[in-house]
Each structure stands twice: as C-alpha cells, then as structure tokens.
C-alpha cells in the first residue's frame, strides 16, 4: 500500500497503518477513534501509548463498547521527573506501564514493543502523539524513531495509528510524517 492522500477512515479498509491527523482525544464521548478502528476490523486488543498526558482519555476512547478490547498502556509518568525504572499500574480494565521519560528513545520503544507478541493481527497500537514526541526530540530523530517503531509494529501484523495534532502542524509536516505509513487519515472534530 502506498501513502494515501488524506481522507476518511475507509482509506484503511484494506488494513495497514496510518498517520491520523486529528484534534486530541478528549474523553469517553470521543467516538472518532473507535470509528477509525471499525474501518478495518474491531481490535481484540489495544496497546495505547500516551505521551505527556494521562492515558485516561485514550483508554476511554478505545476501551469500551459491547466488544471491549483488552487494553494496555505505555505512558510517560512525568516528563520532568528523574527516575531510572518503569513502573506498572492500573486503570479500570487496563494495565499501565509508566516509563519515567521519553528519553532515551530506545528504552521508550522497548517499553512499547514489549507489549507486543510475535503475531498481533487483531491488535491496534495507538500512539498519542507525534506532536508530543516532537517536544522531546528534533524532527529527523522523531522520523527515524517512528520508522523503526512502525516497522516493528508492522512485523507483528498489528495495526498502528500514529496521531498528529491537526492544529499544530503545517501541510509539509503532515506530508513528511505521512510517508512513514500506509495512509494519512484526517478526522474532523465532529461537533
């Protein structure tokens, strides 16, 4: 699949990963992400990656409904805290691995890929968001990091959705990061 022009979630009907250009996930009434997942097949499992903020909103957006997937999250505990190890906690219905910092990126990536097995065809990996990553590292570093991460996710056959804040970036940035994925999907606020 080649990088698509921005469009609706039906661009993902054939599977594959995507750059999702959208406002941030807000709360449990935010249906856009579930609609995105429904474009392919409802996931059995969601691995959420929440950078710079609580995973609560991401959990609320993904982990609900009649066929609620099992959910685990990797979150940055506190971007300014000095700590050496990850900790594990819980949200209702979800496991949370909190890493002390996005950096070093290699350890952050390891925390994410540790959540994945060899074959994860029914798993969605939702990274929220590239915009936050760009606060920790320069554009080229984030680009390279995302290729390596997305390549690992694709190798497990999981579906990756990588969020970019719609109001924070220009068209060139969207196009640049869009090349890393099978599709670019723009989701409107919808209300």
């Amino acid at each position, binding site marked *: 699949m080649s990088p698509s022009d921005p469009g609706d979630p039906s661009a993902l009907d054939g599977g594959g990963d995507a750059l999702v250009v959208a406002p941030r996930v807000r709360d449990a009434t935010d249906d856009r992400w579930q609609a995105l997942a429904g474009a392919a097949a409802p996931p059995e499992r969601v691995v959420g990656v929440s950078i710079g903020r609580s995973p609560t909103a991401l959990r609320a957006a993904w982990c609900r409904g009649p066929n609620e997937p099992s959910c685990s999250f990797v979150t940055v505990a506190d971007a300014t805290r000095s700590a050496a190890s990850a900790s594990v906690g819980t949200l209702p219905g979800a496991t949370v691995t909190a890493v002390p910092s996005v950096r070093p990126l290699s350890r952050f*990536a390891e925390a994410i890929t540790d959540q994945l097995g060899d074959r994860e065809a029914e798993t969605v990996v939702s990274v929220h968001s590239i915009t936050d990553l760009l606060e920790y590292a320069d554009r080229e570093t984030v680009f390279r990091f995302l290729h390596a991460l997305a*390549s690992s996710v694709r190798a497990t056959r999981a579906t990756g959705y990588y969020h970019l804040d719609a109001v924070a970036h220009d068209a060139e940035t969207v196009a640049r990061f869009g090349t890393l994925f099978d599709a670019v999907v723009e989701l409107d606020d919808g209300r």
Partner: protein
Amino acid sequence: MNRTPPDVLATDDAVLVCASDDAVRFRVRRALQREWPVRTAVTAREAVASLGTRISVVVLDDADSGFAAALARREHRPLVEVVGLLERGADATAEWFDASVRKPFEDRELRAAVERLQRRVRYDRLLRRYYAMANDYAGLAARAGEADPAELSHLRERLTEVREELDALAATLDDGDAIDVAVRSFEPGRDDPE
C-alpha cells in the same frame, strides 16, 4: 532531489582492522578477507585517515588504547560501527563498542559480528536516504498547485519502495537494533540517567 549517493547500499564496504600487533592484524584479515575488502591500520593516525574511504565497520584491538582514543573522537560516528577485540576478562561495556569479540575468537564469531554491524550501517544509510526523500516529497506536496503531479507520483512510488526495503532490512536486524541505530547518533548521552 535525492542527494544520497547511489551506492548507499553497497555491500562491499571495506572493514578497517586496527591493531599494532602483526599477529592480530593478520589473524583478523584472514578471517574476513573472503567476504569483505579489508584494510589495515597500524597506527591511530592511519586508522583515522582511513575512515572517510568507504569504511563502515572497524575491528579494533582493545589492547591498543591509542586507537580507542583516536576513534572515539572521530567525526564519522553515524556511519561507522566498531567491533572490539577484547582480552580475556576485559570489560566489554565500553560504550562506543557496537559489538565485541573476546580473544581467542573463532573466525565465524568475528564474521557474524561484522555482518551484523554491516546490516546496521545499511539500515542507517537507507533511513537517511528515506528521510531526504520524504523531505523532498513533503516540500512538493505542500505546494501541490505548483508541483508536477507526475514528479509527485513518482516520488511517492519510490518512497513506498524504499520503505519496503527498510522494513525488510529492519527485519534482519537483532531485537532492538533498528531502534538503536535509528536514534543513537541523534541522541547524545542517551545512556545517561535522565
């Protein structure tokens, strides 16, 4: 458009062997020369002078501290990986060794270490090329009204091809190597506690 040399994925990059001990140099050359061109350096000055000439992997005798000091300061870090030949009982955690082989070593052990590092260098180079192409594409796409649609389409197809090559290459790397190569030279002090 693409500013990366066409030989970016050449697999015949030479291996530079840095050892002042004649026996060690001979032993390493003999182990590697059937698979890669091998160059040798007897002094630190020779080693540093050789780095700019299609060298992607250096095999360094850790017993020669002069080589270590000279190469640690090298400017070619992003595209050069180092195998350290360690004495029995030596510390294998020197942070700028990308792989290490303990003496006495088996030929296949050394070749496996060099092959692994060659793959890491190829991934790094192709990722650099991909980023340059993505920037070109993004610049054109952002002014789509002015860009030649055929050029845009061609570039998108090439990006897809190169991304598939990258994925295939990443799949041949050891666990964690793709991420390590992707971010290492861009994250100074990455191993320091935050």
